[in-house]
């Protein structure tokens, strides 16, 4: 519990930002602080948070995944097309597996062909989107009236939606994995010092495959939740998800250099972006102001963080 508080405190800066922005938006847009709206905000935050949590592991290991948007749409399409054959529960599971397999391929390319993660997943982004287009023939797949699939995005208990449970569940799971499993510690070890990890006998390739499979699976889940919201899947789904996911992780305070990760931070980062988008929509502000705000916030948050250790020498050294 004490450790939990320490970790929580570490990301306090973002907690304060979340609260302040929440209050400001509440003042500006009175409907912002209604229960329904807050649930909407959290639901939308959860979508990015789920894939963001996967991305947190990838970034903690010193890697990236730019293919999550493509994977999300691919999994959504596969899962939709399987519903008539397998039924809803099995096709959802199939979607997650498909995502994990795409992730595994990413991992294999990175470890076996030694292509840097950034470029490997960038190529995979194009390839997977292309495959999805070929698979769907560029058409929409829809399940109107198939209310069973709504389980992924609908409300469960007390009006709280499934994605929120997923996000919190996955956060708890990853928090546990990070802290209490060898796999989790080895992810951090790899991110901190790759050669030390491999010389200590950590099977870095296996860990890498695991990480990317997990990222793929979380991306697939996000993709299917989005598909379930609109009951449609196509190859254009979730474009730009990769950048949102990375932005959320960075805002949350996970360092890009690897070796360290904050699961709670990622959740809060997602909440922050979702709040801003929602608040500005409520205020009827054009979308490009939202982009501007997210960009400024990202730089602002990190600039403030840098100021914490403000010293001339730290300015000299902290460039990464």
């Amino acid at each position, binding site marked *: 519990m004490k450790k939990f508080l320490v970790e929580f405190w570490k990301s306090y800066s973002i907690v304060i930002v979340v609260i302040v922005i929440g209050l400001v938006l509440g003042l500006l*847009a009175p*409907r*912002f602080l*209604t229960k*329904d*709206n807050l649930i*909407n905000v959290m639901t*939308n935050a959860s979508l990015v948070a789920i894939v963001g949590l996967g991305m947190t592991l990838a970034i903690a290991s010193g890697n990236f995944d730019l293919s999550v948007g493509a994977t999300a749409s691919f999994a959504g399409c596969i899962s939709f097309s399987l519903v008539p054959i397998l039924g809803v529960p099995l096709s959802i599971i199939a979607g997650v597996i498909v995502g994990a397999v795409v992730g595994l391929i990413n991992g294999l390319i990175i470890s076996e062909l030694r292509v840097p993660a950034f470029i490997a997943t960038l190529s995979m982004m194009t390839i997977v989107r292309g495959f999805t*287009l070929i698979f769907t023939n*560029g*058409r*929409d797949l*829809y399940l*109107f*009236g198939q209310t069973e699939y*709504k389980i992924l*995005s*609908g409300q469960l208990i007390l009006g709280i939606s499934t994605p929120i449970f997923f996000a919190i569940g996955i956060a708890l799971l990853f928090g546990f994995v990070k802290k209490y499993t060898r796999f989790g510690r080895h992810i951090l070890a790899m991110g901190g010092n790759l050669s030390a990890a491999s010389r200590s006998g950590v099977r870095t390739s296996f860990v890498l495959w695991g990480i990317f499979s997990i990222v793929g699976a979380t991306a697939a889940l996000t993709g299917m939740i*989005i598909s379930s*919201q*609109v*009951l*449609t899947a*196509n*190859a*254009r*789904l*979730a*474009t730009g998800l990769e950048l949102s996911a990375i932005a959320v992780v960075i805002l949350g305070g996970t360092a890009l250099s690897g070796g360290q990760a904050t699961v709670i931070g990622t959740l809060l980062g997602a909440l922050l972006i979702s709040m801003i*988008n*929602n608040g500005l*929509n*409520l*205020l*009827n502000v*054009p*979308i*490009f102001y939202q982009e501007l705000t997210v960009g400024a916030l990202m730089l602002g948050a990190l600039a403030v963080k840098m100021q914490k250790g403000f010293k001339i020498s730290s300015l000299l050294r902290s460039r990464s």
Partner: protein
Amino acid sequence: MNQKIFKLITALLVLSFVLAACGSSGEEATSESRTIGFSVYDMQYGFFQDMEAGTREGAKDAGYDYILVDQKSSESTMVSATIDLINQGIDALIISPFKPDALGPIVDAAKEKGIPVVVNDIGGGGTDYNVIVISNNYEGGVMAAEHMDELISAAGKPKKVASITCEASAVYAARRNVGFEAKIKELGYEVVATLSGNSQQEQGYKVMQDILTANPDVSGVFSCNDPMAVGAAQAISDAGLSGASDIFVIGFNADEIALESIKAGDMAATVQQVPFEMGKMTVELATQLMNGKTLAYDNAELREIFVPVNLITLDNIPN
């Protein structure tokens, strides 16, 4: 070792050509017959797939060879790919431009080779094209506004509507919203929100949720395209309401999903364009141009031919 590298390079090239060949249409240009080139906006969208199908069928019926390039929603790809097309010795160019403003170099290159240019929809960018077939976006928006007024008045709901726009860079599609908003205001309505859903279905869903929160008494929503309209309709039905009877959702394009959504009772209407027919029509116009005939323009000054847009509701939905 260098042999291995060489082998790898060869393998790489062979693979790339195999891949390329897989996708090739297999239609070889013959010198006797005429060749029509079509440069499409982006085959990812159902609307343009239909347009392409119409163009292809028109070309086939007329006995032309047919070459397609895809602009993939990028203006520089639009220019380079279309010029690739022109350099293959086509006899007429049909283009559905991603950015009409960037048509200049394409039209100039075509004119230099004496190739007639038929623009299919979107816009002509003030260039020297031969003819443009255009379904009137502004008029479609107006039509949607009129229908929405009928629905809202009949239901006796408050005169408050919202408008969902495409991504900011899609300036031509934005005219639909401009037409809608102008007409609906004229009819005495308040437009409570104009927000972008980036043309994406999931964004349409999110934006609609936010509109519902900020304006629970909104009675109608017009969306710049059908995917966003369907997304918005889903958000409304997730809120326990109906997009066909509580809050009237009208989209644009008559995409398959929108028709399904109307059938399912989730959405009120959509403004139909006829991309397939437009495609066929452009081939006919190209034929006339190649044969040196003068065209009958609807607007001679801008060399425009209008294609009517239709309102599709549950009553007149095609099967």
